[in-house]
């Protein structure tokens, strides 16, 4: 607690008081209980600092010292955002929910009446499906890391809700945009608190894309929480694209609860932002589950991308596969901490974790920390971590076939990233992510070579 005098904890407590006063009648709603619980958790935990073990390499102090202004998702005028600046996925068939500066934008969104899935903003879901929302919203919040996730709950107003109920569900695209003029006053550094809740009933297939986009060079903070409940026998794919602006920071908590015989696959792609931190936890809560975590972090300039993943093997006969790859240029830094926690009952667990990093500049840096905690004896767990430069022999080989050194480096770097991109099952989305990754790689290679 000694570091707290320097951070902005008091500021957020004050912000919460005025936020609560503005809520009027809404403060009687059931959801307000979650907000109160959130601010209480926040008051108890405070903001993270670089002294905390889990935040040591995160460069979090600069963020924790900054007084970000929480944005209301119901008050204020709609921000004007050009349609052409939105990363629509060409040919996409499925609902799209667009949020601008934390506020749901119905005119930019498409909510399809499609069989097998209901997608809507969270404020509507609280009216239409209150039981489902309340059964899952913040259900595991005591497990969330650090104070920012608690702040997300404290300022909870709106977000995205996706409910997979049956066969033939179209995928859902959620777009959280921070645009210029997000702050209420000039000089404000705004904080949005996007909240996504994804619930899959039993035996359904579904896919959700969350795309976080910054359309402003100004400083801001996206403080996101995503909760996913995967029902028995269901197959859920989640893809996250983090593309914040150059001075935008991004702190995100994702918690996935998995029921028996389900599969869950996460694709976590990071191509932007100033300081980026993902805390991803999957709770394997039944037998026969396969959890897959894929990650691709591309950082240049002075960007920092920090991924903490935790796989809780709490039941026997399950497997988890994790592959996180990173390419860092400029003075960028990356952190990967992958925790696999095999509980005493979780016999016959098969867990594999791999972290591979490519450093394309001498000043780029990566910290990789596999963390295996195994309390069962009949398990198969392995992990590996590699960090290196491009193979000089491979560059020369390509050159002898006519490619310039620059082109050879580009081809090899793209191939490195493609291993993750190619795992995205949806063709249109995969092409979109590949294009984003290639653009990012070109810019970080250009600044380096």
């Amino acid at each position, binding site marked *: 607690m000694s570091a707290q005098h320097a951070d902005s904890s008091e500021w957020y407590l004050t912000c919460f008081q005025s936020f609560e006063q503005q809520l009027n009648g809404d403060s009687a709603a059931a959801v307000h209980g979650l907000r109160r619980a959130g601010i209480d958790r926040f008051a108890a935990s405070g903001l993270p600092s670089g002294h905390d073990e889990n935040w040591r390499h995160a460069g979090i102090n600069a963020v924790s010292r900054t007084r970000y202004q929480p944005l209301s998702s119901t008050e204020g005028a709609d921000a004007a955002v050009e349609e052409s600046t939105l990363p629509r996925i060409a040919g996409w068939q499925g609902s799209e929910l667009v949020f601008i500066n934390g506020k749901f934008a119905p005119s930019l969104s498409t909510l399809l009446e499609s069989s097998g899935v209901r997608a809507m903003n969270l404020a509507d879901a609280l009216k239409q499906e209150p039981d489902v929302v309340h059964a899952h919203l913040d259900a595991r919040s005591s497990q969330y890391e650090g104070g920012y996730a608690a702040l997300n709950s404290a300022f909870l107003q709106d977000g995205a809700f996706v409910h997979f109920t049956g066969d033939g569900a179209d995928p859902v695209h959620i777009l959280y945009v921070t645009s210029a003029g997000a702050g209420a006053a000039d000089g404000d550094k705004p904080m949005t608190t996007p909240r996504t809740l994804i619930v899959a009933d039993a035996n359904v297939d579904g896919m959700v894309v969350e795309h976080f986009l910054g359309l402003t060079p100004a400083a801001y903070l996206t403080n996101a929480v995503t909760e996913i409940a995967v029902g028995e026998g269901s197959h859920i794919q989640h893809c996250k694209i983090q593309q914040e602006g150059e001075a935008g920071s991004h702190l995100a908590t994702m918690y996935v609860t998995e029921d028996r015989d389900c599969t869950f696959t996460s694709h976590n792609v990071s191509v932007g932002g100033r300081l980026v931190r993902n805390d991803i936890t999957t709770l394997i809560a039944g037998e026969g589950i396969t959890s897959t975590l894929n990650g691709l972090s591309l950082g240049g300039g002075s960007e920092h991308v920090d991924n903490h993943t935790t796989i809780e093997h709490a039941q026997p006969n399950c497997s988890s596969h994790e592959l996180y790859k990173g390419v860092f240029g400029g003075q960028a830094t990356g952190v990967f901490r992958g925790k696999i926690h095999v509980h005493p009952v979780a016999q016959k667990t098969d867990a594999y974790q791999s972290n591979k990093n490519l450093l394309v500049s001498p000043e780029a840096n990566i910290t990789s920390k596999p963390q295996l905690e195994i309390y069962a004896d009949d398990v198969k767990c392995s992990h590996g971590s590699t960090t290196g430069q491009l193979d000089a022999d491979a560059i020369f*080989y390509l050159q*002898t076939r006519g*490619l310039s050194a620059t082109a050879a480096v580009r081809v090899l770097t793209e191939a*490195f990233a493609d*291993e993750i991109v190619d795992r995205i099952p949806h063709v249109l989305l995969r092409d979109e992510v590949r294009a984003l990754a290639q653009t990012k790689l070109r810019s970080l290679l250009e600044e380096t070579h």
Partner: protein
Amino acid sequence: MMLKIENLHASIDGTPILKGIDLEVKQGEIHAVMGPNGSGKSTLAQVLAGHQAYEVTEGSVVFEGNDLLELAPEERAREGIFLAFQYPVEIPGVNSAYFLRNGLNEVRKHRGLEQMDAIDFLSLIREKLELVEMDESFLKRSVNEGFSGGEKKRHEILQLAVLEPKLAIMDETDSGLDIDALRIVANGVTKLHTPEKSVILVTHYQRLLNYIVPDVVHVLMDGRIVKTGGKELALELEERGYDFVREEVAA
């Protein structure tokens, strides 16, 4: 004269390997460069292809009137020099079709030819695959990754067939091959050889030369060419070993 090497000296990490090579290759000729292990054969091949680990300390290499040593490896490739690697490099994530088409289009661009699209390329590559008795499924695999020794060498010949260089430098292309793979590789090189094209075969053993008959045979020892002769020199080396040449040099 297609290639003229004069007094070529090269070293790696300050250690001299090539100590004054003189070699001339005319258009259409096949030259064999033979020699014991460590004589500098592979270094010569790598220096001609432009590997940056080797420093050329003296001498000159002129290829079709141009100073080859001034050119980057890719410029040499575009000018028509091809090195078939002794140890082809594995490139995870880059499939063979992409790799071959990219290389071909770089060469075509340099020659003022149109870029070849995926469809035209496919019909070209099918024909070339037959030559090296390779299956189309190879095209989808990552370059050299998980290839057997023989597959790697056949893949090198496939590249040779696609890129159609003026001068092919084959670095120990016969090493590690069983008799069937050797036949396929040798057959490929022979079929691709035309009166306009030249070949330098770098090899330790004579057996490849049963299939590809050289016009000239050079013996490389301790970084110098110490003996040059016709194809019969290779047979003599096979019979008597390198020692007789060593003795001749000493005398």
